[in-house]
């Protein structure tokens, strides 16, 4: 499994209130939420992001609220992966549960810049910055986590398992 796209770069402590402000939380329609993604930190994001694009940020990405709307709006907007030095714990868990790959890798988070073309191999955990020609080693995704992501989230993954009788 791979992801490839151009990078949107942010700093420390990108919180869930800027990812998707509470004023939009009277809806949980994924497409509507996606149209407001990152609006309070980067108003151009929702208009510019293309399927496959990648977010790279520094420390404590996704801090704040438990709103699953946050990873959901980024995934629906087209984000294929988030790389950060560290993630806030609820955001981390929510991302995996909805099938949005996220990787902690300090060096990549520090060095990759906005606009770089980046490719990620989830089997090996390798991150390639094609623009700079650099390579970083993140944590590989275990097989079950790749299956959750392929299925589109934990619920679909669980249902598929139940239906196929492989549980």
């Amino acid at each position: 499994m791979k992801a490839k796209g151009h990078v949107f770069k942010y700093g420390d402590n990108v919180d869930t209130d800027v990812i998707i402000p509470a004023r939009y939380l009277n809806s949980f329609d994924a497409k509507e939420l996606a149209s407001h993604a990152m609006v309070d930190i980067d108003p151009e994001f929702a208009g510019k992001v293309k399927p496959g694009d990648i977010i790279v940020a520094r420390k404590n990405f996704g801090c704040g609220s438990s709103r699953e709307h946050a990873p959901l709006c980024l995934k629906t907007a087209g984000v294929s992966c988030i790389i950060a030095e560290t993630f806030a714990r609820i955001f981390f868990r929510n991302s995996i549960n909805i099938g949005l790959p996220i990787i902690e890798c300090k060096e990549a988070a520090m060095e990759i810049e906005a606009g770089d073309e980046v490719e990620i191999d989830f089997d090996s955990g390798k991150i390639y910055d094609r623009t700079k020609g650099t390579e970083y080693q993140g944590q590989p995704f275990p097989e079950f986590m790749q299956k959750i992501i392929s299925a589109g989230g934990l619920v679909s993954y669980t249902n598929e398992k139940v239906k196929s009788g492989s549980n």
Partner: protein
Amino acid sequence: MGMTMTQKILAAHAGLESVEAGQLIEAKLDVVMANDITGPMAVPVFRKMADKVFDKDKVVLVPDHFTPNKDIKSAENSKSIREFAKEQGLTHYYEIGQMGIEHALLPEKGITVAGECIIGADSHTCTYGALGAFSTGVGTTDIATGMAMGELWFKVPSAIQFVLKGKPGKFVSGKDIILHIIGKIGVDGALYKSMEFVGEGLSNLSMDDRFTMANMAIEAGAKNGIFLVDEKAEAYMKEHSEKEYKIYTPDEDAIYDEVIEIDLAEVRPTVAFPHLPGNAHTIDEIEEMEPIRIDQVVIGSCTNGRMEDMRRAAAVLKGHKVHPDVRVIVIPGTQKIYKECLKEGIAEIFVDAGCAFSTPSCGPCMGGHMGVLAAGEKCVSTTNRNFVGRMGHVDSLIYLASPETAAASAIAGYIANPEKVGA
């Protein structure tokens, strides 16, 4: 190997003799809670997994965020969980007129007690750690799974131990202490970890102080905050709950990543400046700055909407008028607190001072309604987050403070020292 309080609770709920940091476990849940923002999103996910909740006494729904409903979409969302609660026959669903802000309401109703394993689809679910429970916030998928299965997987956290000593000054409360701590360790200072509070200084903290402190553990990135259960906590639970509770104490040889001693006597009234709860300044530092003029004050929320918070704010405001350039919104946390404010004459003090006095709601804390900020406005708020745009316009500014500092600032028109106004 010794275990922390949190590790002992998780081991007991996983049916294991012992656990250690980093271990993945499945734990049984005692309370599974959602609100009018996370609940409506969880119901369709729940329906993909089950028809009936695992236990109608253990699944709790509280419409508190956008209620009384601020618009049609919010009304539809509240309606969906109201109907779900009826259909499932939930014991603990609290409608407008009986409800409160979830994290003020659940302990007051006796729904949460020591030794329990609790999840809530709200990041401030860590509040119940004040009672000696393991309690943490989760998202929609996890809460739907919890509602269906009554159990969830966890990664056992390591912990930082905070040893409290001494007695806080008259105008220093739980909010100042937790802002001081987050200022010290940073907004990711306890990332993925437990914050465990022990020490002789505990006896100088009221339960409401402790709820405020546990509430903001998430603002240091923590998985949970938890207090050692003492006589005060036991008395609180006996007064509010009929549930059996269990007290877990940390082993003497428990392993902590760090042990931090906090002398409560040295904590000053503290304010967190925009845009992070860790951006802490003491009132003494602020007094040396140019006055920070403000447009609004909010006193309330799951952090500081409890009875003692109301009393402390009212004591400062009594006999004073709100500054003419400032709007003040006071929101008691629950109906019980609202009524107590009426009985004690506190509501009258607020109204006489020129404050708006509201029915319980999360309201302005997350920029929902009832006090949203315009561009360039500054607000002193007893809430928990001062992120960009949290309470309204992306260019508004939030200063987090205690109820007393907020009340003193409401009178002065700028961020003010409660020791001077309230003395």
